[in-house]
């Protein structure tokens, strides 16, 4: 059984908003647009046509994450004490360690999850926000797909936080060897959490609204 594409009501694009309807963001029930703020009759979540203050909230979170991204990469995420000598590692020095020790697939995994994914996510979200603010008509389906990518990949950045947790738990052998978490880990965790909220705050319907408003000649 394949994938059936449903056909829209008419040739002209018809959105719930234009038809005076609201789709619940939680249970997807389609309701008539209430005159005053109201809750979904089915699941009880507040009904809104678009996520409230989506652009402002998403921008605030993207900028906060961009600020945290700098100390996350510069400050050490682990301090290793081995027979009295202390060694501090940042995310990049961990990547370089794996390259030197020959496990470049692991180096690549850490680099992608910790350095590349958060940066890519921030760039995509900034691009989407700017395109929505400029009411861009450029490839809305591709931009929606970019949004889906940011939603899907963000979680993988938690990788290094988990590695630190496991190392701290295992390498706790008194004077022989000890690993402690560094301040970079905290900023790094903040980057992951804040970018996840940023992706949550962005409303992909805005990508398509920009097209319709121009079609209506409103802009």
């Amino acid at each position: 059984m394949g994938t059936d594409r449903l056909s829209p009501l008419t040739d002209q694009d018809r959105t719930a908003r234009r038809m005076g309807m609201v789709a619940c963001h939680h249970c997807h029930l389609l309701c008539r647009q209430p005159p005053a703020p109201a809750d979904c009759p089915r699941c009880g979540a507040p009904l809104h046509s678009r996520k409230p203050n989506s652009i402002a909230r998403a921008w605030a979170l993207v900028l906060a994450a961009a600020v945290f991204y700098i100390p996350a990469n510069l400050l050490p995420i682990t301090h290793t004490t081995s027979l009295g000598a202390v060694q501090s590692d940042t995310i990049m020095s961990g990547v370089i360690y794996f390259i030197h020790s020959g496990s470049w697939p692991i180096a690549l995994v850490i680099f992608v999850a910790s350095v590349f994914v958060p940066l890519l996510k921030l760039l995509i979200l900034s691009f989407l926000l700017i395109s929505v603010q400029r009411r861009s008509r450029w490839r809305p389906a591709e931009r929606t797909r970019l949004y889906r990518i940011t939603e899907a990949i963000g979680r993988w950045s938690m990788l290094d936080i988990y590695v630190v947790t496991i190392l701290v738990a295992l390498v706790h052998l008194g004077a022989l060897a000890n690993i402690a978490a560094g301040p970079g880990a905290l900023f790094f965790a903040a980057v992951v959490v804040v970018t996840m909220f940023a992706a949550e705050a962005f409303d992909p319907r805005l990508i398509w609204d920009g097209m319709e408003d121009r079609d209506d000649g409103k802009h």
Partner: protein
Amino acid sequence: MPYIACHECDLVHRLDEIPPGGAARCARCGASLRRPKRDSINRTLALTMAGVILFLVANTNPFLGFRIGVQVRETILATGIYQLFQQDMKIIATLVLFTVVIVPAIHLLSMLYILVPLQLNLVPRHLARVFRLYMFLKPWGMMEVFMLGILVSIVKLVKMATIIPGVALYAFLALIFVLAAMAVTLDDHLIWEQIDYRR
């Protein structure tokens, strides 16, 4: 209501009957609108029960042993989180506890709470509230990322010491597959449709 709006681009579609195993996608942006599942409640419930057992095994048994010289250290998941608490990394400890233990636990319990009554043709109280909590927490369950973290840690430590995989490690791995299978067999619209809101 035969009409639904796409949750990603707001385009309204008329919904025709979709056979189980089929899928309806948005004509404009391609988002998945409906994906009815064969025997959804039954299968998801069976997976949930397996998940509960695996979860208990994974959290009570050692997941990695670590031998350096004569010293042997076995850790269960809680030990690592406890160590972080001890080192004043309370925020990170909370985050790990939340994403690897609490969210998967709520995930499994909320599914039990919803699916057991539905299987008996009853509608649980507060179904909407519990299912909304489930949907809200879903992105924050990160066991598969944790599993990758375990693999990276093993590679990192393997030169320094002997690593002994524990029972919990296998339970974790199995649990990840069970949770992924649950996401496939669960039909969220079927759950929402159990709520009689028209009174």
